[in-house]
Structures are given as C-alpha cells and as structure tokens.
C-alpha cells in the first residue's frame, strides 16, 4: 500500500476573533491564500503537481462560502489544475482535511495534496451557518441536542472536576504557550499575516500569560444561564445520574475565539522526493468516530483507541499527544481515561491560550505536534480533536 508523508506544515498566527483583533480587517480568503503561497514559496512547489487542496471551514458562508478551498487555490496563483475541496467536520475540519489529503495519496487518487483550513471567526460568526440540529425541534428532541459548553460542564460534573481543577489546567496552558513562544518553538511554522504588503500579525495574540488561578476564579460560568433555560434538564434525561450540572467553564478555561489559517503539504514519498523535498513524517493511521452527541466531547478517547488499533499500536507507543483544548474538562477527561501524564500532552499549550480557529485548528496542531517531535526528538505523535455533534478525529504520525 502507498503511504502518505508530510513534507511541510505552516500556519498563520492567531488573531483575536473580535472587532479588536489584528486580523479582523483581513479577509478569510486572504488568510488561506497566504498559507497556500507560503507552502508554495518555502518549498519551491510546482503547483502544477498539486492534485488537490482540501481545506476545513466550519462557517462556510458569506466570504467563506462557495468552496473557499478552490477559490483560495485560484487566488493564490496556483496552477488551475489544482482542484479544491472544502470540508466540514466541525472542530476537526482542519485535521480531517489533512486526513482526506493523505487518503487521496494512499489510495492512489493523488500524488501531491494539501490539507488545511481557515476560519475568520471575527468576520463570519460561529454558528452563523445555522443547522437543523439545534433549531429543528423534531431533530433536537430526538437527539437531545445540548450546547457544547454544557457538555463540557457535564464531563466535569460526572468526573468530579472542580472549578479549581479546570482553572488550574487553563493556567498551565497559558504558561506553556508563553514559554513556547518565548523559546521560539513555533518559529518554524509561523507565516506572518500581511495586509497590503505590511505585516499585521506575527504572533498569537489571544494569549494571557499573566493568567492566575485567582483571576480565573472571578469569571462567571458561561453556560449556567443556558442550562437554567432548559438545557440542564435536557441533558439530565441522558444522564439521570446528574442531580445538577456544575457549570465550571467560562471564557478563561475554554478555547479562544480567533482568526487563522493553516496548511500541510502531503505527498507520496516518491512524488515529494521527485520535487526535491524531504519527508518529515509518515502518517501511520487516521480515524474518525461518532460518540454520544449530547455530551458531544468524549470522541477523542474513542477515536484514539480506534486509531491506535488501526496502527497496531498501544498508548505506550505514542511519545507525544496533542488534543485540542476545546474545554479544560475535555483534556482532563482524556488524560484520565487513557492514563496519559500531563507532561506528554499539549506540551506547548493549546487553544485555551492561543485560540481555536474552528476550521483551521486541526491542521495547525498537526504542525505543532510535528515541530515539537522534531525539537524534542520524539518518534511518534498522536493528534486528535473533539468534534461537534459527538465525533472524534485522530491522526498518528511518525518521524522518518
């Protein structure tokens, strides 16, 4: 069977996803275009050899609509023969895009492909694409739809994670991200964002390195009101063991709303080497899975086990883990269920500190994992994300 290799990975820095963010005046297509141009220029890529560009995007409407992947290809000046495909697997869209790109290589459909993603959350609001799941009462009722944040709070309640537990995790994420930036650990992948020829952002700007436990303690729970309005009662029907939901999550221990884009160059070994490129990692396994949708966020555990089984590996075979910090409880639960030490996971911080540009994050943290494996000389890594509507997506990579 053919195998897929990663040759390069780049990302923009993440801008705060509101009107005050540095990337707010930069269009989404500009972010994805700059990522594609960087991949081309860094690698001297003959874009006529690129079979397909797959990009995740979670609010694919307005300026992000109408297949932003294909339009980015054209806008970036790639050869017109490079096709484009936009995919939506909620928060794992960016990783799914890479997995699809890799699958195209493995299946022989393509020789060279790019996986990635883009999301300008400041310009196209989260949830603005609607969806029957939450709005159609028949669907919502049949599936016990509950907003994600309440699912995160339920994970905390069921597992006894206190407010201090989740806040402490958040403080550590901030600390690690700050340390990683100060040591230049992201330097290899960062593509500063330009506007009209001027650099407008070269560093993740959502971070709050001075975050303290006491400071977080002052924040009000974000999902308490929603729970009281009816959703606590909905999820208690799925989990009647809950007397009440302990609402522990807030803006400070949940992933940040940001703008950004990322891209990963994936090819067969032969095709890459024929272009004079050196493979950095081999993709060992890929998997997606569905999980209980009301709690929504426990997919990473199941999909990790699935990916490990597909690779014929066990947890002990993985040197480093990267799990998107959608909410603090998601990571605490993952570590608890799989028996992973905090020193092995999200070692350079995560989305709580740096933000989660929905469609792009999966590709971003795949690159972050690869960079760290090279820096700290580890062999194997697993990247995974929890996914809306109860799913998980994972990828296992191995250095060459």
């Amino acid at each position, binding site marked *: 069977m053919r195998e897929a290799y990663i040759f390069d990975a780049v990302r923009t820095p993440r801008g705060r996803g509101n009107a005050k963010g540095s990337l707010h005046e930069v269009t989404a297509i500009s972010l994805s275009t700059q990522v594609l141009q960087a991949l081309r220029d860094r690698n001297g890529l003959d874009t006529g050899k690129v079979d397909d560009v797959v990009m995740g995007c979670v609010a694919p409407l307005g300026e992000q609509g109408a297949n932003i992947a294909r339009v980015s290809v054209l806008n970036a000046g790639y050869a017109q023969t490079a096709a484009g495909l936009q995919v939506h697997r909620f928060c794992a869209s960016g990783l799914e895009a890479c997995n699809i790109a890799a699958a195209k290589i493995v299946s022989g459909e393509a020789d060279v492909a790019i996986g990635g993603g883009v999301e300008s959350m400041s310009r196209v609001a989260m949830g603005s694409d609607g969806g029957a799941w939450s709005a159609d009462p028949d669907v919502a009722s049949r599936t016990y739809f509950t907003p994600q944040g309440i699912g995160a709070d339920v994970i905390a309640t069921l597992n006894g994670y206190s407010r201090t537990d989740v806040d402490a995790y958040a403080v550590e994420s901030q600390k690690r991200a700050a340390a990683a930036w100060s040591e230049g650990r992201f330097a290899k992948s960062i593509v500063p964002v330009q506007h009209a020829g001027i650099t407008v952002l070269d560093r993740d700007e959502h971070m709050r390195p001075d975050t303290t436990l006491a400071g977080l303690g002052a924040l009000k729970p974000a999902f308490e009101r929603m729970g009281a309005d009816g959703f606590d009662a909905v999820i208690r029907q799925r989990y*009647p063991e809950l007397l009440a939901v302990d609402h522990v999550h807030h803006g400070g221990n949940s992933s940040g709303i940001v703008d950004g884009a990322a891209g990963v160059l994936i090819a067969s070994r032969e095709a890459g080497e024929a272009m004079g490129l050196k493979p950095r990692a081999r993709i060992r396994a890929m998997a997606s899975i569905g999980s209980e949708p009301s709690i929504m966020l426990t997919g990473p555990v199941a999909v990790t086990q699935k990916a490990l089984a597909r690779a014929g590996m066990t947890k002990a075979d993985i040197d480093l883990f990267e799990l998107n910090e959608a909410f603090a409880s998601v990571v605490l639960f993952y570590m608890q269920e799989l028996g992973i030490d905090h020193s092995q996971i999200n070692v350079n911080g995560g989305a709580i500190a740096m933000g989660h540009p929905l469609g792009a994050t999966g590709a971003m943290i795949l690159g972050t994992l690869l960079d760290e494996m090279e820096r700290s000389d580890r062999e194997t890594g697993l990247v995974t994300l929890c996914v809306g509507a109860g799913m998980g997506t994972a990828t296992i990579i191995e250095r060459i």
Partner: protein
Amino acid sequence: MKNFTITVDADGIALVSFDVPGRTMNTFTDSAVADLDLLVERIRADGAIKGAVLASGKANAFCAGADLGELGETAGGQAKGATLAAALPVTSRMSRALRALETVGKPVAAALEGLALGGGFEFALAAHRRVAARGVKVGLPEVTIGLLPGAGGTQRTTRLAGPRKALDFMLGGKPMDAETAQSIGLVDEVVEPGEAVEVAKAWIRNGGEGVQPWDVKGYRMEHGPYTPAGSGVFMLAAAQVQAKGMHNYPAQENIARCVYEGYGLPMDAALRVEARLFLATQQTPQARAMIRSLFVSKQANAKGAGRPEGVPPSKVTKAAVLGAGMMGAGIAFAQARAGIETVLIDTSQEAADKGRAYSEAIVEKAVSRGTMTREEADALIARILATTDYEAIAGADLVVEAVFEDRGLKADVTVRAEAVLASEAVFASNTSTLPITGLAQASKRPANFIGIHFFSPVDRMELVEIIVGKETSTETLAKAVDYCKQLKKVPIVVNDSRGFYTSRVFDSYLREGFEMLMEGIAPAIIDNVGRMTGMPRGPLELTDDVAIDLVDKVARQARVDMGLGEPSGGSDKMLIDLVAADRLGRKNAKGFYDYPKGEPKRLWSGLAEMFPVKVAKSDPELLEKLKRRFLYRQAVETARCLDEGVLTSARDADVGAILGWGFATWTGGPASLIDMVGVARFVEECDALAEELGDRFAPPALLRRMAEQGDSFYPAPKPLEAAA
C-alpha cells in the same frame, strides 16, 4: 345552515350569528364545521354582502372550542400510511374551510364576547380583524388534551405574535385576557362589553381590507430559525419542550414542529404542514388517553358521574368545618367562595381566627389584582364564622372534620358535633388514610357518616375523594357529591379501605423509590427517572416535601391496625431509621436531601452510608426498566383497587390519579396506561417484574381475567374515516 344565521344590514354588512342549536354554549360540532363551507360560499356569492362580522348568538360566549365528535372517537388509532393519507381531507376540513374564509375576497371581522377558545379562537384568527370586548378570554388549550390547534392556529398565531409568544401561548394552553392578547398581536382592538359587533362593523364600513397580511405580495416572516435574532428562540423552544414534557408529549413537540416547519412558508403550504402534524398527533395513544381523562371523564366527574340515581338533588346552605389548620382553612374558603355559610371551629379562638385569615389573605390578593371586587371579598369573609363554640354548628347541613389524623380526637369531635346536628345532616371526615368505617363507630348515625377527602392546597386542587363507609347510605353519598359540585370540585367515589385509593397508590410510588434506594440505585437516578415518567416530582424529593416522619407515622398506624410487629427490614424500617437520624424532610431541612438556605438542595451525604450506591451510572435499558417500575407499580396497585372494589370505575381511577397526585398525564391515568400497554402484555410484564422484584408487582385476578378475555378498560379507537 343550521349553525349560522345571516342578517345583512343597510351597509351590506352581514352579521353572522354563530348559534349551535340545542346547546347552551357554542362548540364546533361536526355539523358546525360542515356549515362553514356554506357560510363562506354565501359570503362569496351574495352580491349584497360587502363584508361580514362573525359574532355569537349565545349570550355567554363566542365559542368554547371544538366538540371533538369524530376526532375524539378516532383518536389514538395509530393509523399509518395510506389510512392517514385517506383520512387527511376529513380531519383537515375545518382548516380548509377557514382558509377559504380568509381568502373569500371580502373583509371579515370577528366580534368576540365572552370566551373564544380552541376551534372558536381559530375561527376568529381566520378573520381579518378581531375586536374583543373587555373581559374576553382567548386561548388555544388543545395541548392540555394532547392535541394541537389544527385549524390554522399554529400558523396564524406565529405570523401574528411571532414564534416565541405564539409558542408560549400554545404550549401553555392557558386562556389569555383580551388586553394581553392585543399586546401580542392576537387581537386588534379591545372595546367595552356589548360593543364588539358595532366596532367590527365600523371597521368594515371604514374600508377594512379583506386580505390577511400573509397574503399580501412581498410578505416575509422575519427572525426565522436561521437568523441572528431568531436562532436562539427556536433553540430554546426545543429545549424547553423537552425540559417540560420529558419526551412524553407528542402534542407539545408537534406544536413546536408546526411553528418551525411552517415558518416562512406560504399559508397554503404551512396549513398542509399543520394538517398532517395534527392528524399524526391525534393518532397518538397520548391524545386518546388525554382527551378521555382530561376532557370527557373529568367533565363527567365534575357533573357528578358517581352520584347514585334516584336521590333528589340537595344543596348545602350552611356547613361547619372542624379544625382550622391548613386543610380546614382551605375547605372553609372553598365553601365561602361557593356561597355556603361556614362555621370554622378550632379549640382556641386564635386558631380559628388564623384559619379565617387564610381566606382573608386570598381575597385581599384577588382584590389587589382586580379579579375580585371589595364587596365580593367582604361578603365572602362575612360568610365565615370563626369560633370555638360547637353550638354555632346548629342548623348546618354538613360538617367536615379536618382535625389531626388521630382516631381519639376524631371520635371526640364527631360526638361533640353530632350533639348539635340535625338528624339528617351529613358528617364528613377529611381523613386521608384512616378507614371511614372505623371512624364511623364514633357516630350515632353511621349512615350519615362519609369520607370527603380534600387535597392540599384546597383552593387549587380540583379533586375530592369521597369515601363510602360500610354503613354510609346512598342519600349521604348523593349529598356529598352535590356538595362537591357546589364547591366546583371534581369528585371520585371510592369504597372504604386503608389509604382509600389516592393515598394508597401514591404511597406505592414513593415506596418503589425507596426500594430502588435500598437496592443501591443512585438517588439522582431515582428522582430524575421518576420525573422522566411524567410524575411531577421524584419519589425521594417528594417524600421530603410530604415529610418522612409523616409517611412513617401512617405506616406505624397501619401496622398497629393490622396487628403487625416492628419491621426488621424493608421500606418501613428505612423510614424508622431515617426518622431516628432526624431526617424528617424539607420541614427540618434534613431529608434525603439537605436544604441549605439560599442554595439549591443537595443530596444528604449520610445517605450513601445508609444505602451504598451500587448503580451509579444509567443506561437506556436501566432507564426503561426503572420507568416501567414506577408506572407499573402504581398501575398494578390501581388494578388491585378495582379488583377489590375500592374503585368501581376506571374513570374514577384515571381522573383521581391525574388530579390527585399528578400521575403521568400523558398516560391518561393508570387504567388508561394498562390499556395503552395492552392488558395481556401488561400482565406478562408485571409477572416478570414480580418474579424478579416481588409480589408487589403481581397482577390481580381482574387483570388476568381481562387478559384472557381480551378485554380492556375502555373501548378501542374507531378506525379513521376515509374521504369520500
């Protein structure tokens, strides 16, 4: 047309007088619905008619709603596919007629006086203008009997009031006064009583247009489910339907569906959505059960269905209440409200006055809200004499004792009252648990002695459980039923037994919760699943509300009466242990739960030591089983009451359960539930539960006999009629 008469005035305005023959109140009978087509045709075709005003020919109201007729008979048939399709033109007849009315091409105004409910209000909603007199109540209460407003109600209210307010209106099912309806857009104009017709006519004369807003070209519904302003409304509506209905009420879910799926559609398509969902809802077993118990049976009981025949009607003009505690005070209020001269007696003047103060507080509130005049309030209070003097009872037609549940005390007040009472007067005990025949032993005239069990709070609880003792005469029973009717209560009649019917079966719900606790099922699961069955509260929290020591006291009395010794295990022992640990319930803030001041209740930490949790997690299979245990336990106990003759009708069983202790309304009551499951299958499942959990689930002989003979408590639904 039999139901509408038309008078055209000099201006060419047709006054359409809705007047269903032979009824005191207008309802949309099958005949009235059929007449709608003729009415529309007349308005359309008669060149002399420029516009029409819809009004009532009855003095009391515009229209009280649909007379369910065929729709009631065929409800719950669970028809599928081609049968549904064939019946749709029949079941959506009124919807189409009203659409024809609003597109008749001439202005139509509704002039509302009195009530406009259900189909009656849907009729008015199809008019181009609604003028309501002050004091009018409008409402779409269909949801309360498991149906949805199926004649355009879901679509027109959504377009007039917006989705949030329309959903609240229809899901709540409560009537609304004219002013509130105007404030949300359901009524255009509010006028003084008696002026609605003239104002409606004036609107037509002044050029009112006969086109609905939604039929004007370019009409758009704003704030839909996929707009920033509307998405939250729809998302929360879906959650609230689930939070409230616990997935047991298809009518609620389908109302939300009608609003969502009809949103933004042209009216004809929107009405097709509603018509199909109406039929789907009408065919659910819940609709049949709720129509029966909450509409047909409840009305029958309210009219005195359990009254023995051949006894002349009676009326209570003076009645005494012994004991001015919470129950006595409530009964006194109910009597005074019904115009009965009331003597309220307690051992001290202070206690008696306190009992009367309860009524004073209620009427003061009503006066401040404007729902009662000062004169009415004063007259009501003047009817209550608070005293310690038994001599004041003289001349009373009836006495209700509401003293503590203590045989000695009850015997004492019986003797004292009878000393002053006329020989034909009725003596009633408001006991909730003590057998009436035993209490009647203190009476010199046991034929006049009866149980009249009120529920707390008396002014809000409609049910009264009348208990016939061994020696109670039919005259006494008839008088008791008449008294309940006078109080506008809904009586059921049961025969004497420990706990009668309601307390006995209610207790079985609590006990099943105790059993689960002793088995090691997590308390949160027990209470949450209790609520998920449709019971208003979980059994443990409910026991805390009632008071653990009270449940224990009743159990002790039962053991004494039955000559049983101290229990060595089981739920009786559990109660004893809890009381010994000073866990009395909400009243001392220490029960199964702790009740810290200003904070939500939380589980008592000591409970896990007493009953170690063995089942901490739920799964769908466990949930289904626990739900079945809660509901079947009560249903099988009800069947025993029927088997033993404590209950004499399934109707009393169902009405009593729903109104008495809030038994899962969607089932229509425990007897309806057994029918819904199917008697044979119910027996089979109870046998399996009895095998596993004990004899408390063993079905009585009555059910086995019914299963063998293929009987049910109620007739099966009639098949839907196909369109000709």
